[in-house]
């Protein structure tokens, strides 16, 4: 006897009955077109995002190097830029990208905001969501599965054919498995070509040279989406099997879909945001300024902190004024100032990020109850379009900014004469060959290991759902009744 013969027979039969309905062709073609549109716009978006960002990253680097001899502190204010680049999987999953700032200006003394997000330049239309392949896979296909599957068992019950099935020796387990496979086989007609196109585009984008890291991300992306869709197939069959009428099954399934994909994601995040209020920019900035002033104000000639530094320097070098020190005094003070201010900034930033993490904790916790959130978080993580990737980008930019500022301060301390030029003297400068000492900003996206670490909850959640379903199917097989 062949393995699962009955199941396959039921599946084939169900698939044929689905394709008897003309509507399924229309829906399939429509979803196909939507997927193409999503792929095309995702590609277009990705290409232009990366082209512009590379172009200006490069241009700003050229500009930086082209600067003539000047005082290093001028260069610290000339500054650099961090432009955000997308990772290749973001063609399929936009995630939070539209809300990310695309450029950060990096200069001495000051941590600038990440500016020019797509959302800032958009009408409220953006808030309805975006058409991406991930959106079609995660939101539309589950609904399609429910529309196909709601009467998979309930209809047989209404018709009375269910009793015939069971009396002919088909077990509930075989019936449920068969129907699930039947729905899955219909969905795979959309899913498999989508994945093929997706992989092809993905290869094309990277000129067929891909790192192991990217491959693992892609495999996980495909695998988890497959599992996710199977989850909905099983749900459809189970709900259909336990509903008295197909109408009841349909209404329950629509309810489940709405709660999972529309209501819960927004509500849980809103609860988090409501309970843990984050400070606005103005409050955040003024708190930092207050703390910096407490530590010491380098502009205030009578400031205790800076006076102590001055006195100790004078003592160590046995001189009576800062002009007689063997190095550039103001460069030294600026090094100290940058250290203090960026320390304080980072402390406040950590506090802020803690609040954000608390806000997000509700959604994360709910991912155990809601496979959609788990899937969404995981796929955003894999495509580097999630919250952590953005914070990571900002942090890398800040590290770069700090090193750049301190490098310029060090050059000033070392090469700029400590004697202040008179009002009519030329400004003190150093050679432009030093500018190349500061390396170009390069953003390194998070690797797969880091992503799995942050998204471990989602992975566990999806795995638990799968195990739960096996148990449920077995359990249901024993409990379900034909009438």
């Amino acid at each position, binding site marked *: 006897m062949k393995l699962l013969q009955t199941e396959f027979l039921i599946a084939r039969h169900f698939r044929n009955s689905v394709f008897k309905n003309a509507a399924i062709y229309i829906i399939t073609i429509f979803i196909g077109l939507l997927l193409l549109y999503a792929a095309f716009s995702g590609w277009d978006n990705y290409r232009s995002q990366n082209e512009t960002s590379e172009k200006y990253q490069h241009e700003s680097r050229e500009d930086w190097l082209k600067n003539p001899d000047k005082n290093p502190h001028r260069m610290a204010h000339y500054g650099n830029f961090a432009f955000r680049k997308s990772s290749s999987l973001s063609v399929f999953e936009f995630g939070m990208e539209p*809300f990310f700032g695309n450029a950060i200006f990096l200069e001495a003394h000051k941590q600038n905001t990440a500016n020019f997000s797509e959302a*800032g330049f*958009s009408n409220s239309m953006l808030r309805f*969501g*975006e058409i991406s392949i991930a959106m079609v896979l995660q939101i539309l296909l589950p609904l399609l599965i429910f529309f196909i599957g709601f009467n998979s068992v309930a209809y047989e019950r209404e018709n009375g054919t269910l009793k015939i099935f069971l009396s002919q020796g088909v077990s509930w387990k075989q019936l449920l498995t068969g129907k699930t496979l039947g729905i899955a086989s219909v969905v795979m007609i959309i899913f498999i070509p989508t994945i093929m196109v997706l992989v092809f585009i993905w290869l094309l984008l990277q000129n067929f040279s891909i790192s192991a890291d990217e491959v693992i991300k892609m495999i996980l992306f495909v695998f988890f989406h497959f599992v996710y869709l199977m989850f909905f197939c099983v749900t459809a069959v189970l709900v259909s099997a336990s509903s008295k009428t197909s109408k009841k099954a349909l209404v329950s399934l629509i309810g489940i879909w709405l709660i999972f994909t529309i209501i819960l994601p927004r509500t849980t995040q*809103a609860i988090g945001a409501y309970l843990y209020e984050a400070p606005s920019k103005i409050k955040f900035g003024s708190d930092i300024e207050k703390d910096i002033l407490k530590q010491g104000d380098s502009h205030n000639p009578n400031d205790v902190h800076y006076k102590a530094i001055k006195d100790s320097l004078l003592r160590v070098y046995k001189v009576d004024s800062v002009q007689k020190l063997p190095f550039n005094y103001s460069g030294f003070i600026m090094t100290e100032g940058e250290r203090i201010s960026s320390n304080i900034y980072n402390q406040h930033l950590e506090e802020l990020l803690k609040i954000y993490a608390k806000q997000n904790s509700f959604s994360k916790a709910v991912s155990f109850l809601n496979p959609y959130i788990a899937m969404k978080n995981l796929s955003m993580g894999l495509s580097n379009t999630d919250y952590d990737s953005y914070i990571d980008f900002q942090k890398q930019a800040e590290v770069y900014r700090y090193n750049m500022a301190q490098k310029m301060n060090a050059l000033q301390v070392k090469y700029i004469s400590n004697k202040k030029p008179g009002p009519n003297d030329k400004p003190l400068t150093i050679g432009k060959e030093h500018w190349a000492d500061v390396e170009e900003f390069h953003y390194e996206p998070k690797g797969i290991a880091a992503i799995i670490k942050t998204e471990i909850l989602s992975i566990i959640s999806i795995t638990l759902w799968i195990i739960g379903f096996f148990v449920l199917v077995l359990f249901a097989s024993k409990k379900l009744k034909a009438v």
Partner: protein
Amino acid sequence: MLQLLFKNFLRSKGTKAGLLFLLIISLISLLIGRQFQQKQENNIAEAAVYQKEHIARNAAFHKDEIGLLLYYIKFSLVNKTLPINSLAIGQRDVNPSIQSVTIRGLEGQKYDSELNNPSNLLAGNIDFSFVLLYLFPLLIIAFSYNLISEEKESGTWKIVAVQSQNTFLYILKLFYVRILSLTALMTLVLLAAVLVLQIPLDKSFAVFYGITVLYILFWFGVCFFIVSLQKNSNFNAVILLTIWLFLIIILPAGINTYIINKYKVPEALELTLTQRNAYHEKWDMDKTETMEKFYKHYPQFKKYALPEKEFSWLWYYAMQQMGDDESSVQSKDLESKLEQRNRASELIAQFIPTLHTQIQLNEIAKSDLRNQLLFLKETTKFHEKLRLYFYPKIFDNAPVDKENWEKFKVETFTDATEISFLKAFLPLLLFNLLLIGFGWRNFMKTL
């Protein structure tokens, strides 16, 4: 008869649960709106205190050099938040409602973003407009998808048809009961909003209310039309949910993607780079060249000759000015691109009731892109005003303590865009008439 229909409708467990759910989530949306309002108010208060302290402190340190003082101090402009904004938060969470600028180059400061948790932005707010746009239609669908079809399926329709003289009137009454219940609920919520958020009962509110009613009627119109096709309940449910999906997710998202890809804004990045170079290169250029350009822009300052020193504040601010002047092309391009985006989306939205409603509500609440663009323009004016006031003082090196710094309070921008009844109501009205008309025709044919 009508009374009985009401009783029958409200007695059902599903109805009660649905209405209760909607009421609770509406009230939650008001709480969220109130929190948003308080946050905005706190920010403005904070900005006022901060500006005062910040100017006073700096004025005390830099007593002898007004040029240096103005290098540091920031002045704030507030984009006025109306109470009704809490009902439709729109883009106000993405964009900052306060701009703080120094009189140095503006282009490098103008687009500074608000601090935000991107997860919150992605999920979106649960404000009243969300409840209205997303959830009301779902309940409307749930209440009406099986009218007639359910009775047909259970076999009671024939009895109804025999017993009532006019079945069409009976159907209208069924809808009437549902429309009245949901409109009453919505009115109740908006009344609560008026009290909780202290929304003035003015023209804005009237238009807001009008759109809300029309939007609810639109969805009843959709249901009326679908019910008039007299298909079975399952078909109705599937088709209505599909319509909802199209109007709420697929079309808006598709159009948004189209607009974003059609009007790309690389100008934004170009602008920052140009602005940076235009200012910084002046440090290494001939001073008189910079000054010539500056005098050309502001002939009134020609009387201030460049001092014979290596550094002067006149030269410094002239350099800063050049950052703005020489990037003005990119700045204008960016501005017009964004205006194009806004125009295109408003135009397309007229044909999609959900989008139209959202955009109109945001327009009333002054939380749309247009308001943001006006605010940016006003920021430019505000900045220019400060420059013109301080430039002569800096060039004269006017004594710092002679200036009354107290008078530099936080200023407020009020968006005075008039709301047009026609623009707001017409698209929805037309859609409603069409749906009712076609539905009516269908019923006339089949009943």
